[in-house]
C-alpha cells in the first residue's frame, strides 16, 4: 500500500497572533510552529495502515524552509520519506492554488491512499484535500473516524451532524481526518535519530511544471483585504448573591431581561 500524507506546518494553537504591518498577513517571527493537529492524525493513520498491510508512507508538504521540521517529525514518527515543496513563489497561495501544486507533485508520487487533515488550523480553509482529490480525479471521504481496507477499496466511518455513515470508496482515494480516528504516537528517540537519515526531496514550482504566475500571494483568487481582531466583548457581568438559588434567580432574570433568550 502506497500511502501519501499531506502535511502542513501551522502556528502552535497556543500562539498569540499579531497582524503584520501590511494589514493582510500575520507576523511570523515570534511564533512557535507545529504540525497541523489534524495532519498528526493523518500520519498516525498512515503508519497504522502500513503496519497492518505493509507499504510506504510518504509525507508531502508545501511550505517554507522551516516546514522541514514538521516533515522530520513525521519521519521520526515512522514515515519513510518526504517531499518538500519549498519555493518562495508558492508562499501565500490560497487553497485552490495549494491544491494545484500538491496535485502536480502527486503526479510523480505513487499512491493508493492519500490522507489529509480535515482542516489546517491556520487559515481554516477546509478545502485543500477535496480540491486535490478533484484534480486527481479520485474519490474523497472526509472527516473519517475509522477505516477498514480490503479488496481495492476503503471502508470509512464518517460522522455528520446527527448521525454517521459507512462509506466505501474505490482506491486510489483521499480521506481526511478528524479527532476520534486514532491517538497519534510521539516520536521516539531512536525514531528521531533515524529520521535524520531518511530522504526528503526538495522541489520548486518549476520542477513540478507549475506556472509561478498562477500561485503565491499575488495570484490568490481569495484576496485578503484586511485582517483585524474580533470585536472585544463587554466586560463580564458577574452575578453574585447569598445562595445558589439567589444567584440562579438573578442570572435567569438578567438573561430574560437583557438577552431575551429565556
Amino acid at each position: 500500500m502506497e500511502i501519501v500524507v499531506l502535511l502542513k506546518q501551522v502556528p502552535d494553537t497556543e500562539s498569540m497572533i499579531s497582524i503584520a504591518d501590511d494589514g493582510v498577513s500575520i507576523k511570523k517571527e515570534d511564533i512557535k510552529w507545529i504540525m497541523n493537529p489534524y495532519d498528526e492524525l493523518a500520519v498516525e493513520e498512515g503508519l497504522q495502515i502500513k503496519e497492518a498491510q505493509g507499504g510506504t508512507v510518504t509525507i508531502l508538504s508545501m511550505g517554507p524552509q522551516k516546514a522541514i521540521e514538521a516533515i522530520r517529525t513525521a519521519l521520526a514518527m515512522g514515515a519513510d520519506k518526504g517531499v518538500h515543496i519549498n519555493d518562495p513563489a508558492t508562499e501565500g497561495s490560497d487553497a485552490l492554488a495549494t491544491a494545484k501544486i500538491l496535485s502536480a507533485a502527486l503526479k510523480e508520487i505513487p499512491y493508493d491512499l492519500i490522507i489529509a487533515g480535515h482542516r489546517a488550523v491556520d487559515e481554516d480553509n477546509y478545502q485543500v484535500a477535496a480540491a486535490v482529490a478533484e484534480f486527481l480525479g479520485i474519490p474523497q471521504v472526509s472527516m473519517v473516524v475509522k477505516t477498514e481496507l480490503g479488496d481495492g477499496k476503503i471502508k470509512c466511518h464518517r460522522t455528520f451532524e446527527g448521525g454517521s455513515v459507512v462509506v466505501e470508496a474505490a482506491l486510489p482515494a483521499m480521506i481526511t481526518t478528524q479527532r476520534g480516528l486514532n491517538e497519534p504516537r510521539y516520536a521516539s528517540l531512536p525514531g528521531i535519530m533515524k529520521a535524520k537519515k531518511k530522504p526528503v526531496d526538495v522541489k520548486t514550482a518549476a520542477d513540478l511544471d507549475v506556472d509561478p504566475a498562477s500561485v503565491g500571494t499575488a495570484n490568490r483568487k481569495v484576496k485578503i483585504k484586511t485582517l483585524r481582531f474580533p470585536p472585544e466583548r463587554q466586560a463580564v457581568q458577574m452575578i453574585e448573591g447569598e445562595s445558589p438559588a439567589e444567584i440562579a434567580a438573578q442570572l435567569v432574570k438578567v438573561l430574560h431581561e437583557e438577552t431575551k433568550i429565556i
Partner: protein
Amino acid sequence: MAQGVFVITEQRDGEFRKVSFEAVSEGRRVADGLSTDLTAAVLGSGIEGIAGELGKYGADKVVAADDQSLADYTTDAYTNVLAGLIKSLDPAVIILGATMQGKDLAGRLAARLDAGVAMDCVAVKLEDGQLTYTRPMFGGKVLADVEIEGTPQIVAIRPNVMTITEKSKDCATEKPAIQVGDVKTAILEKIMDTGDKVELTEADIVVSGGRGTGGDFAAVEELAAALGAAVGASRSAVDEGWRPHSDQVGQTGKVVSPTMYVACGISGAIQHLAGMSTSKYIVAINKDPEAPIFSKADFGIVGDLFDMVPAIAEEIKKIKA
C-alpha cells in the same frame, strides 16, 4: 456574463436543515443588493414536495434534483449534479452552509469550477457592487475580510449566524435533467442518532461541561434539557472518556455559534474558545475566579457547578412552567 445567486440547500430525510433557510435568506439579501435573481437548489430523493418551502425565504426559483442516487449525500454524485446545474445557470455567487456536507462539497466544486471559496463566513457585505466576506482564521483569533476574484464566487456560511428572514415569493419548482455521472463511492450504512437530541452546530443554546464536572454530566444534562439546549464538552471531558468525540467543542472539534453558550467547569483554554467565541452570549460557571473563561464571558458565576447548575435549571423550569 455570470449573474444571479445560486443557493445550495441541505435536506436530510425530507427535512431542510436550518442552515438552508439561513443560506436562502442571505442569498435573497445579496440578490436584492445586486438586483438579480435567486435560484435555490435541493438535491435528494422524493424531495419535490418540500422544494416549494424555499420560496418562503425569497427564492425566485427552485431547482429540485430528485433522484434515487441522491438520497444520501455522496461527494461525487452531488458535485456532478451541482456542477451541471451551475454550468447551465452560470451564477455569479454560490451560497451554501459550512456544514460537514458543505465543507466537503465546497472544495471539490471549487476545483471543478475553478472558483474561489470564502469558507465559514460570519458576515457578507455588499458595497458598490463588490461583495466582501468576513471569515474567522487561526481559530477565530483574527477576522479576515476577503474578496473573491472571478466568478462564480463560492460562499460557505457558518451555521446559526445569518438571520432567517421570511420574504414570500411566487416560486416555481423546476425539475431539470441531471447528470449523476461517474460515482466511485457508495453508502453502505447510515446510522441516525436516536432520540430528539438537539444538534450541537444548530442549537440555539449549548450547555457544555469540562473537567470541572469530574465526569458527572447529570447537572449539565438537566440544565440543557430545561433550556432545550444541546450538550457540548471540552476536549478534556472527551479525553477522559466522559463524552463522545462528536460532543467536543473547539479547534479540534466542532465550531458552534449559538445565541447562548453556557460553560460549566471549563477553564477557557484558547483551543476551546476557538470553537465557541462567535456565540452571541457566553455564560461561565467556574469555581476559580481567575479562570480565563471569565475574560471572554458576558455573564459569570463564581461557584461550584454542582450547586449552581441545578439551581439554574430549577429557576428555568419555574419560569417556563
